[in-house]
C-alpha cells in the first residue's frame, strides 16, 4: 500500500482516498462475503468499513500499518452486520433425512455443503479468525492484532471454529442432514 496515499487521505485529500478505496474495496467485499455468507450484508459491511476508513483515518498513528488497521475496520463492520443478521435469522436446526449417503464422487460437494452449514453456525469472531488466517494467509498472532484480541484468544477461536467445522463434517458422515427453519 502506498503510504503517501494514506497520509494524503489522512489529511482530507478526497482524491487520494478515492484511489485508496478503489485499491482495497474488492478485497474488502470478498472478505465480507466470506465472513458473512450473504451478499447484501457483505455490500453493507464493505460500505460501512470504507466509510469508517475515511472517517477514522486521521486517528491512524502509523500510516504504514494501514492495511492491518483497515482489516480491523472491516471485521468490525462484519460484526455489526452479523449482529443484525443474528437478530433476524430464523432459528435453524439439523434434521436427519432418509436419503442414501452420497457416493465418493459427490463427497467433495457434500463436504462443501456441510462446511457451509458449519461455518454459518460459527459466530462472527470465529468466522473472522478463519477468513483472516486462511484467506489472507496470516499467522494467528497477526490475526489477533487485527481483531484486537490476545494471541491466546485467537488460538482458542481458531481451534473452536475448526472443531465446529469438523463436527459438521463428521455429522455428515454419520447421517445426511438437511437444515430447516423453525
Amino acid at each position, binding site marked *: 500500500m502506498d503510504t503517501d496515499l494514506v497520509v494524503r487521505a489522512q489529511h482530507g485529500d478526497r482524491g487520494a482516498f478515492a484511489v485508496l478505496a478503489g485499491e482495497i474495496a474488492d478485497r474488502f467485499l470478498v472478505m465480507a462475503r466470506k465472513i458473512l455468507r450473504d451478499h447484501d450484508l457483505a455490500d453493507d459491511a464493505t460500505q460501512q468499513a470504507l466509510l469508517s476508513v475515511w472517517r477514522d*483515518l486521521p486517528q491512524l498513528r502509523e500510516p504504514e500499518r494501514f492495511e492491518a488497521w483497515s482489516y480491523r475496520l472491516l471485521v468490525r463492520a462484519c460484526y455489526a452486520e452479523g449482529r443484525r443478521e443474528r437478530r433476524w435469522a430464523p432459528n435453524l436446526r439439523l434434521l436427519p433425512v432418509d436419503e442414501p449417503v452420497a457416493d465418493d464422487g459427490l463427497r467433495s460437494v457434500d463436504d462443501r455443503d456441510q462446511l457451509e452449514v*458449519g461455518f454459518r453456525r460459527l459466530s462472527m*469472531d470465529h468466522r473472522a479468525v478463519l477468513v483472516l488466517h486462511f484467506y489472507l494467509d496470516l499467522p494467528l498472532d497477526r490475526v489477533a492484532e487485527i481483531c484486537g484480541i490476545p494471541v491466546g484468544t485467537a488460538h482458542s477461536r481458531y481451534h473452536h471454529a475448526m472443531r465446529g467445522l469438523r463436527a459438521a463434517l463428521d455429522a455428515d458422515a454419520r447421517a445426511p442432514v438437511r437444515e430447516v427453519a423453525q
Partner: protein
Amino acid sequence: VSSSDTDLIRVVRSWIRAPESASAERIVDAVLFEVETEPQARRRWPSPWVAFTGSPIPLGLAVAAVLVVALVAVSQVQWTEFPGGPPSSTEPSATASTSPAAVDPDDIGGIPPAGTAPTDPTPGELVMRFEPSTPWMTSWLFADGRLITFRYDDRPADADDAYIGLIQQRLHPDGVEYLTSRIISTGLFESDLALLHEGAGFLNLDVRNGERLVHLGWGHRAWGPAWQVAPTATQAQAQALFALIDTLSDPASWPASAWADRTEVTFVPAHYGICVRGVPDPVDPDRVWELLPPAAQDLRDGGQVPDQSMGGADPSCATVTTNDARELARILAGAGIERMLPRFSGEIWLRYAFDDPDRPGNELWISFGPVLPHGEAIWLGPG
C-alpha cells in the same frame, strides 16, 4: 491425530480460498458520494463551549458540567437499553425491571436445575489437565482421585437434567499415581516446555511434578512469537506424546485397579464464574456490572475466580453460588438481555450479550462458567 487434522485444514483452507470475483465499484461510488459531505473524525477541543461564552470555560467547570451531563445520560441510557426500562426509585431493587415469571426457571441451559446438589463441593488439588486437539475433550484429574471430563457431543445416554457437559468419575490413589507417573516418565515434564508440532494437531498437558504444575504445549508457529523459536518435537518426543494422547483419551484402557469408582456421574458445580468482557474492545468489568439491573449487581459478592479459558482479553470473573448463577440468568433474561445460543448440537454453554451503550459497535458479554474443584472457572463454548 495429525493426518485427520491436516486433512481438515486442507479442506477448510481450500474451501475458504475458493476463487470469488467481486466488483465493489458500485459500493465505492456510493462511498465517495457520501465522503463528499462526510467530515473526518479529528481530535479537537469542544468549540461549542468557546463559542457560547466568547471565551474558554474554566476547565474545572467544563469537566464538572460534562460529568453531570454524562451521569444523567448514563442513568437514562443504561436502562433504556433493556425492554424492562429503568427501575422505579420507589420499588425494591430485587424486582426492578425484571419479570422472572416470563422465564422458565427449568430451562436455563448450562446451569443445573434448582434443587440439584453439588456433586462434591470440597476443593481439590489439580494434578493433571489434558486437552488434545483430537478427540475434542478436556479432562481434569485431582489428587483425591476425582476425574472430571468434557467430551464434545458425547452426552451419556443416561445423563440427567443436571448435565452441563461434564461428567465425574473417581480414581483410586494408585490410578492417580499410574497416570501422573505415566506422563512424567516421558521425561518431557521436568519444566514448562513448548514444542512445535509438524502436523496440524495440538496438545496442552499439565501435570503436577513435585511442587508445581508443569505445562507442555505442543503447537504451531502460527500461535505467535514465542512459538517461532520453539524447537520442533523430535520423532521420539512426538511418538511419546501421541502415545500419551492415546492413553489419556481412552479411560477404558486403564487398568481396573486404577479405579475407585468408574461410574460416570453428572458433575454439578457448587459455584460459577461470571465473566464479563467487551467484544471486540475490552471493557472495565465494573462498568458492565453497573449497567445490569440492581438485583443482578446484588448477586456479585466481590469474590473473584481465576479463569484460563474464557478467551477474553482481560476476563474478570466474579464467583457466585450455583443458585445465584441461576438467579442471575433469570434476572438477565427477565430484563430482556439477549441470550446467545449455542450453534452446534453438542455444545452446552450460557452467555448473554447486549450492546455497549457507551461504545457503538461494541458488544458486552456475560458468560457463565462452572468452577472446578481447584477453583478455576472453565468455558466450554466459543471463546
